[in-house]
Every structure is written in C-alpha cells, then in structure tokens.
C-alpha cells in the first residue's frame, strides 16, 4: 500500500518532473489517452517520440481511458491521493474533475518561464512582451 500515486502526462515527460521528484518512492503511471490520440489524429512518429521519453522515466505505461486507468492503478495501490503537474489543456481539466470525485489531487508546477502574477494583456503578443520583457531581463 502507498498513500499516493504520481500521474505523469504528456506535458511533462522529463525524469526531472517535479511530481516524481517530490515523491520518489511513489508508484508512477503514464496513460496514452486513446480517445485523444484518435481525435487529434496523431500518427506513429509522435507515439514513438513520447514512448522514448517514457523509457527514461520510472513509470508504468498504459493506454486507454486516462481517468479509468488512473483510478484502477490508485485503487490497486490503495492510494487516496494523486499527484501530477499542471497543463493548460481542457482535456487535463476534464480528467482532473473526474479524478477529484474519488481522490485528493495535488498539482506541482516546475519553475515558470515568466514569474509574474500581475495583470498581463494577452490581446496581442506585443502587449504581453512589453510586460514580460521587463521581468525576464531584470
């Protein structure tokens, strides 16, 4: 039994993944999202690339429905908590919402590119850059 599992997803395929680093002894899993692969029409070369990344990471690899596979994996390890890294994708939000029905979710971010929590104008890149530049090169 372990208290938690680490969920590795496609936005953080590094052995330095902060969720893995924070819980080095926890069982970790990656799930190929078959529905997403079909809807984005991903071809073989992307799968090979991702798989090669995974082979350098201490994770169990599965495919299928992500929330379902994670639930099964967590239950087998009698875990109540799932730890992962953030992603802006709507798919990630959906999966998190499903997981939160049953598990506690912890999301650990790595160091941001732009460490700025004030207001950013995203209407055009040029406006974003005006603010970003000051904080990046100070």
């Amino acid at each position, binding site marked *: 039994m372990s208290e938690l599992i680490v969920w590795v997803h*496609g*936005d*953080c*395929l*590094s*052995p*330095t*993944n902060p969720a893995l680093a924070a819980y080095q002894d926890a069982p970790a899993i990656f799930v*190929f999202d078959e529905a997403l*692969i*079909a809807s*984005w*029409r*991903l*071809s*073989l*070369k*992307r*799968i*090979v*690339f*991702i*798989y*090669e*990344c*995974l*082979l*350098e990471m201490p994770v169990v*690899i*599965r*495919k299928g429905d992500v929330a379902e596979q994670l639930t099964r994996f967590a239950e087998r390890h009698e875990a109540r908590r799932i730890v992962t*890294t953030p992603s*802006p*994708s*709507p798919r990630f*939000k959906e999966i998190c919402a499903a997981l939160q029905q049953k598990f506690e979710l912890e999301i650990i971010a*790595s*160091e*941001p*590119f*732009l460490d700025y929590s004030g207001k*950013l*104008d*995203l*209407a*055009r*890149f040029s406006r*974003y*850059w005006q603010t*970003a*530049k000051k904080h*990046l*090169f100070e």
Partner: protein
Amino acid sequence: MRRDFADRDELIRYLKVEFADATALDDHVSSTRGGRAAAERTLEKIDPPRYAATRNNLRGKVSRLSAYIRHGVLSLAEVRDKALDMVRSWRDAEKFVNELAWRDYWQRVYAQIGDQVWIDREPYKTGFAASDYADDLPADIEHGTTGLVCIDAFSQELRETGYLHNHARMWLAAYIVHWRRVKWQAGARWFLTHLLDGDPASNNLSWQWVASTFSHKPYIFNRENLERNTERAYCKICPLYRRCDFEGDYASLERKLFPRKPVDEDWGDRFPPARRNGRKGGRR
C-alpha cells in the same frame, strides 16, 4: 505496456501493433529521438547570438528543441537559463528568449480559451468571409504533388520528419490559406497529425496568425523572400521558376490574393465593431 526493447526497431515494431490506427494514418518515424538525454544534447548546441542573426534562414542556427519543450522534457525556464548563461549580455540572447516567450504566450491564451483555439478569434482581414474558404485540405498538398518544388518538399518533410523550420511552416500555411483559400483549421489538423511538437496552442494560434483571424493582417510571402531564405535550394530546381504562384512584389500579390480587400483598409490592432462591445481583444 512493455519497457524492455533490444533496440529502436523492436520498439517501433511493437508500437505499430499497439497503435495500429495511428500507424495507419502515417507510419513514418522521425530521426529525432525522444528522451531527456537527447534533449540535453540538443540544448548544449544552442547558439543564441547566431540564432538572432540567422533564424529566418532554413539553414540558420535554430535550436530544434520544440518537441522537447512541447512535451516538457525541457522546461521553458531551463532553456531560458541555459541561453542566458551562454552570453555575456542578455541582449545577445534576447531574440531567442523572445521566441521562447511566444510559446509561453500561446500557452497562456490556451489556458484562457481552451477548445476555442479551434474557432476564429476574429474575422479574416482578407476581404473574404470564413465561408469563402474550403473545409478540406486539397490532396495535392497532403501528398506533395502540387508541382511547386518548395511546397512539395515541405509537405514531404513534415510527413517524414515531424518537423518544419518556422519559416517553412509560415510559407506552407500561407500557401494553404491564402493561395488555395482553405480554412486554416484544415491545415492545423494536418500539422497536428505530423508535428512532433504539435500542440493546439502554438499550432492553431500560429495558423490563426497567418490567416489573420488572430492578427491585424494576413501573412503572405513572395518567391524572392523564399528563395533568399532557402539558399535557392528549391527555386534552383523548380520548373516553375519565375512563373510560380509566388512571383511578384507584395503589393501586386495582395491585389491578386485579396481582390475584395480595400487597399487602404487599416485594421490596426483594433477589432471590427461587431466584436468591440463586451468581448475585448482576444480575452474571454
């Protein structure tokens, strides 16, 4: 799934069976290797000052880090720090960090609008309505049989390697949207199938930038620009040289491609009146 493979060929054979549908779409494998070790080797080779001077050229010193960054094998912060560590003054890395910032920017927009990255952010500023554009990608582009040596080479490179230089992406996207009058979404879907770095934020929003649905004017190019930035590699062997679709100066190409667009129309950074109330500039 399995983790023990004697070599890459064995891994590929295994994945072709396990992911038969993805393989049926296209079964090329890129020479770009996945993994942190390969990512770090690629990161060691960046050269921010030369990048700034040569990045527009297809033979220029671009980093080829995009697939690693896309999948978080390297974080943008790590790459930023590496670039800044390599130069004496931050100014020598400014251009490179500015390009990294494009990714950060698109990701932030994606976090706000989600699946709306698939929807026109603004109307086309080409004199045409979205309904004037075709829904599907023409087969000659997909298969690389247009007869235009550059376009066909880019199409083939995309399918075989999963990577295209930024300028090639811009040219190919502009050709599809503006010369063939195809909806950017059709091109974006095609890119996502093949790009190792494909992601709905950078990809779709860049397509929208080319199309003019997320910028104040459409992006176009001409033969002279392409020829100069490719060391003539394509033009030199093209049977259509000097009579291709990209021949001419920008003013005449604009008139030809966008006959309904008023010449002096200046959209600036503003939005058409219909969108100005309530929903401001690209934000929810």
